[in-house]
């Protein structure tokens, strides 16, 4: 009985090096980007220690010019190959890059990403062109999702970006997108 209480209450004592190794193992096995919060919960560690371990891990990968990198993506950490080696990886996996999105789809996606939740008429207003087929493509590729109906005449459907969008565009979260006003300076 006493022993059991002891086991539960005692915090796991790991050396920083061990923690780095364990964090690496968990990020490796995770199917999806794994968040600092989840790592802290599973390992019963402070978030700060997890954060430090990840930073240590990142610098180790970089320090030895590893073929792998640890990236923050869609609110979590993910182990991925380095862009430099994409040709070799692709050759091995026998995959081809995904079909590129058309200009119309990309524009529609940009409007949705910045204006979400946004309705079809609002997208039309900005793009000056019907976007129905682009929206279908984006829904099919799960880059956008329906986000309920707007409380306006006709109750039009609203769209927003999905988690897949963050993953496919390598974003931590939506705030990582440059501000739309930044593009104004770029344009002029």
């Amino acid at each position, binding site marked *: 009985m006493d022993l059991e209480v002891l086991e539960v209450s005692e915090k796991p004592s790991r050396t920083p090096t061990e923690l780095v190794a364990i964090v690496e193992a968990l990020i*490796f096995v995770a*199917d*999806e980007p794994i968040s600092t919060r989840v790592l802290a919960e599973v390992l019963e560690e402070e978030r700060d220690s997890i954060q430090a371990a990840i930073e240590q891990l990142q610098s180790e990968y970089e320090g030895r010019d590893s073929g792998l*990198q640890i*990236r923050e993506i869609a609110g979590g950490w*993910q*182990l*991925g*190959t*380095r*862009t430099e080696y*994409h040709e070799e*990886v692709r050759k091995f*996996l026998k995959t081809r*890059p*995904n079909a*590129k*999105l058309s*200009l*119309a789809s*990309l*524009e529609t*996606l*940009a*409007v949705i*990403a*910045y204006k979400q939740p946004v309705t079809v008429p609002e997208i039309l207003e*900005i*793009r*000056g*062109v*019907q976007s129905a087929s682009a929206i279908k493509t984006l*829904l099919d590729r*799960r880059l956008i*999702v*329906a986000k309920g109906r707007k409380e306006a005449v006709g109750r039009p459907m609203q769209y927003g970006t999905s988690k897949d969008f963050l*993953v*496919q*565009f*390598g*974003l931590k979260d939506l705030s990582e*997108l*440059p501000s*739309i*006003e930044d*593009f*104004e300076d*770029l*344009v002029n």
Partner: protein
Amino acid sequence: MPLTETILTEKDEQFSFDFHKETAEIMSGGTDELKIKLGEFAGPLDLLLYLIRQEQADIFDIPIARITEKYLEYIRLMKRLDIAVAADFLVMAATLIEIKSKMLLPRDPALAADDEEMEDPRQELVDRLLEYEKFKSAAGMLHERSTIEAAIFPRGPIESDENNAEIDASVFDLLTVFQKIVARHVDEVKMEIQREEISLADMIKNLKARIFEFGEVNLLEFFEEMHSRRELVTAFIAVLEIVRAETVKLLQNKTFGDIILRKV
């Protein structure tokens, strides 16, 4: 931006038109279907921006007559090549002509006296162009990001991973499955004989009993069992009804995979 409008005619010839030199030439093609490649303009605003830049005009002081003329020329070209001109392009043409005519009209002297700074008829268009251009650049940024991302591979392809957290299938996925099956039924049923049709209530009861018995039901298989379109529709409504009541969950193991109904 590619400037060449290409059209493959029924005679296996490729007709290409250089918009700027206004020369046309026939090139050999390889397909018998009428295929049209309409440049790469994403819309009328995109075309307009292009023309303004082409004319080296100032976006804040658009030479509206010249740009309108160029724009209409482009629309005419599309028509000449038998390309169905999207309505949105025509709307923009009308807008340009309207602005042009407004600018030709002499100012109302009574109004001008009152309001020294009468709004430029081009203002609204300029605002739209500037707004659009921001999103066009943002689209370019997204394109670059996705290109970089496509060069990074995570451990194992997530999409084909059976352990992947189940994706909640949406009503759209459901409709896609339904359409697939209806399409298959179209050819099969030539004549419908009056028969006792199952009621929606019975269908829901049956489906619920099955989910309860097996824990889960593959929707594709369930729909396949239906004998008529009517039954199929009843089955579809039954699924929607059961999902709405939230006693079961719609699941998809992978993108475009089969949809499973599972007890919560």
